[in-house]
């Protein structure tokens, strides 16, 4: 290999091109007039695919309708790790932008040679390439797979934002029409020839071991094909879905379990967090000699929270001669899942093929990966027939990974003018990720229930600067003295993993609540108090925009009503977002209005940004006012919608979204940016309405009654 070739192959390429360097891994130009884009990213209900299609259409100069997005699958897609809402546009979008710009240049060079003109004189419109003399050709006429069978160089600059015609426009979601007509698009709708229905009976409690079960009686039920038992993993296969459900109920009724207490006292989770073994990490430490005139401290907390998607997790699996298996999944990372399935099933990764199919709303690490192992295990008893498994609602709420409980201690010293001179934050939390594909043991639920069980790996925090429990633990304000310490709890009685915004919701709730407590001590207006501590111009402008749009200064205080503001820069490197919440407090808290100002850099699809932000904010209202996973010392008991209520139509506030467009700043994701500020703004509005400070989420009527005393 020559030296030049070597250095080319080692050149650092933009975004996820770095790890997936061949252009053909990203796109294909087809003679029939289409562009196939094979992103490793998957649609998780946030319109990511629409945004990626816009990027490809923009750089290639073709109409959006020509872009076909191929679902991710091993082994053909680029390995882009896990799709988590906020990162997709950053990593995948950047790679695709460069890959498409380079593809355009390659095709233009071909066209120039064919038409006998200079490359720079060519124009492209919807894939048709025209020379100044009127002669033309097109991508489709020139289509040749060999042209893209090469490594990207990353040397062709994408368009400047000022030239954008498609990116930056509100585009209708590419997947929505199918869904409003009820066309079968979800994995839950997928039917394979000869398919059997599988159902799993989960243990009676967290540490329960199966002692006995009357499988013969269930096996004899008409329509039951097999009862599967492997240690404490118990399931059934049937020829009809309702038969599988009934048979699972019968199995559960006859199963005897050996149970024991393993869960902490739900009534005092902060005490459990502090008492558990933990590993401490100082993530910010800046000394200052400034002497505070007064000091304050407070402790905040959040409970375990559930994903609670409306569509239960689902997967299909089919074996070929016990040697290889194909799995259909709505996992966020097909390669990560493949690695863990291989570990759990004792196969080489190459013997596992994982194909992505869209699922219902995904807000983090939900049971998509778990149900894939369930399907693969049950399908082993299906004699090469495909098996479909759909989790029961109780399991979806009761056995999914949860967003972990956190306790956050904040203290600060203010000077004679009320300005913060010292700030300390310490939080306690499990790590925020038990995603698959990261350890030498499979992080899949059923793997822990097998005859030869695998221990569930302990939750880790994703690396900094995004972090997990560290996420947004460092405030963006310019405090002279600052210390932030994160204690990762090393005991994991309930599986903890990534739920939308990870640690940011609780950290921002704590920081922004405490900022209001300090503003009050300083006798300052909350908006003014934040601005005095913030020099970042983009941060200042979203706070000002939200205050202006909400008419903050003209607010008239009336009995039982309050308003509050909160702000954060998501992950301290993503979207800037400020939220003003207006609440009414009667028997319970009603959020009447949210005014959100956001800066996500260059906006790819404005309506998509508004839709995602609004959705994220409404979900955060639900978490702030209602949600907590409840359990006794053995089992989770909040496993129906009655026991785990979420915000309903009649309770949803009006939401106004104002987008501050920054065409020359990098695009960042928007789905999760509003979560923390929404929680903080509601807490502050409740204080404004009632004069009581609720520091523990959720802000329930019981907590308010106790606080009022």
């Amino acid at each position, binding site marked *: 290999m020559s030296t030049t070739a070597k250095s080319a192959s080692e050149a650092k390429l933009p975004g996820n091109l770095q790890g997936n360097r061949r252009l053909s891994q990203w796109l294909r130009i087809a003679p029939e007039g289409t562009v196939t884009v094979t992103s490793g990213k998957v649609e998780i209900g946030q319109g990511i695919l629409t945004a990626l299609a816009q990027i490809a259409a923009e750089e290639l100069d073709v109409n959006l309708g020509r872009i076909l997005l191929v679902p991710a699958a091993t082994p053909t897609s680029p390995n882009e790790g896990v799709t988590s809402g906020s990162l997709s546009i950053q990593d995948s979008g950047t790679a695709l932008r460069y890959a498409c710009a380079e593809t355009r240049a390659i095709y233009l060079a071909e066209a120039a040679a064919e038409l006998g003109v200079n490359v720079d004189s060519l124009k492209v419109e919807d894939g048709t390439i025209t020379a100044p003399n009127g002669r033309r050709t097109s991508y489709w006429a020139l289509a040749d797979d060999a042209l893209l069978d090469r490594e990207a160089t990353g040397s062709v600059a994408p368009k400047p934002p000022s030239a954008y015609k498609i990116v930056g426009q509100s585009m209708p979601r590419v997947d*929505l029409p199918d869904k409003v*007509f009820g066309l079968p698009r979800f994995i839950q709708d997928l039917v394979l020839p000869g398919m059997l229905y599988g159902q799993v009976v989960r243990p009676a409690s967290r540490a329960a071991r199966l002692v006995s079960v009357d499988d013969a009686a269930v096996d004899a039920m008409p329509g039951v094909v097999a009862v599967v038992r492997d240690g404490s993993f118990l399931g059934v296969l049937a020829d009809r879905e309702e038969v599988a459900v009934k048979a699972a109920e019968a199995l559960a009724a006859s199963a005897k379990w050996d149970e024991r207490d393993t869960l902490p006292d739900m009534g005092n989770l902060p005490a459990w967090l502090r008492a558990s073994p933990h590993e401490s990490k100082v993530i910010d430490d800046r000394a200052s000699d400034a002497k505070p005139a007064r000091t304050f401290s407070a402790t905040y907390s959040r409970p375990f929270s559930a994903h609670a998607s409306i569509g*239960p997790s689902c997967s299909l699996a089919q074996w070929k001669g016990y040697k290889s298996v194909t799995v259909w999944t709505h996992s966020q990372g097909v390669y990560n899942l493949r690695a863990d399935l291989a570990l759990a099933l004792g196969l080489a990764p190459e013997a596992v093929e994982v194909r992505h199919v869209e699922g219902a709303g995904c807000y983090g690490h939900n049971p998509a990966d778990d149900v894939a192992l369930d399907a693969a295990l049950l399908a082993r008893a299906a004699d090469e027939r495909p098996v479909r498994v759909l989790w029961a609602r109780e399991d979806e709420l009761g056995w999914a990974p949860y967003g972990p409980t956190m306790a956050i201690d904040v203290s600060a010293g203010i000077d004679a003018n009320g300005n913060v001179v010292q700030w300390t934050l310490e939080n306690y939390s499990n790590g925020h990720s038990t995603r698959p594909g990261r350890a030498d043991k499979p992080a899949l639920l059923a793997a822990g229930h097998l005859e030869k069980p695998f221990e569930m790996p302990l939750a880790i925090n994703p690396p900094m600067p995004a972090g997990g429990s560290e996420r947004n633990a460092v405030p963006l304000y310019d405090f002279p003295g600052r210390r932030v310490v994160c204690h990762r709890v090393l005991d994991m009685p309930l599986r903890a993993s990534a739920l939308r915004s990870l640690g940011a919701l609780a950290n921002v709730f704590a920081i922004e609540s405490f900022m209001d407590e300090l503003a009050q001590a300083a006798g300052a207006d909350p908006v003014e108090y934040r601005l005095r501590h913030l020099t970042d111009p983009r941060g200042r402008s979203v706070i000002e925009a939200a205050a202006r749009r909400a008419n903050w200064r003209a607010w008239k205080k009336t009995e039982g009503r309050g308003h509050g503001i909160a702000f954060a820069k998501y992950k301290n490197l993503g979207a800037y977002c400020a939220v003003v919440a207006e609440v009414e407090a009667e028997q319970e808290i009603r959020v009447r209005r949210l005014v959100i100002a956001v800066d996500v850099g260059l906006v790819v699809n404005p309506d998509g940004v508004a839709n995602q932000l609004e*959705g994220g904010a409404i979900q955060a209202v639900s978490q702030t006012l209602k949600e907590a996973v409840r359990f006794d010392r053995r089992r989770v008991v909040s496993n*129906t919608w009655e026991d785990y209520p979420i915000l309903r139509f009649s309770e949803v506030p009006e939401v106004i979204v104002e987008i501050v467009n920054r065409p020359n700043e990098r695009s960042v994701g928007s789905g999760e940016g509003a979560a923390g500020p929404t929680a903080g703004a509601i807490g502050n509005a409740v204080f404004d309405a009632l004069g009581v400070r609720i520091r523990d989420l959720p802000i329930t009527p019981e907590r308010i009654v106790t606080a009022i005393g």
Partner: protein
Amino acid sequence: MSEEIRFTVNGAERAVRAAQNTPLVYVLRNDLGLRGTRLGCGVNQCGACHVLLDGQSVPSCDTPLWAAAGKKVVTIEGLGTPQRAHRLQRAFVAEQAGQCAYCLSGIMISAEALLARTPDPTEAEVREALDRHLCRCGTHNRIVRAVLRAAKEAA
């Protein structure tokens, strides 16, 4: 135990041989291939599976097959098709009223029942009519706007 049950689905006569107490949702999805009706909880708590039964919006997960005998069932596929879209389907696309969209089939069915009895509903009436439907993606306000938009279009 399993006998033939006849009923009308989206205007066509259908006969199904299945146990009488089979929840209607499984018959629609698996026997009749109408998978637009989504299953969310199976116990009448989320609204994902609603269909019209003689014009009433009911949870098909909690409706046994026998209760549909001789009746008229309308599913999301019966509201309209890409070629002949129903006004609700047009309005939901126009308002981009969906994120994951898993909740939408049941919601559009209840919206249709609402518009049949209250052609020009207030926003509060729409919210009340949809209150038994859960949406986790937080698309509620767009959905309400879409129903109000559809109401403005003649049926």
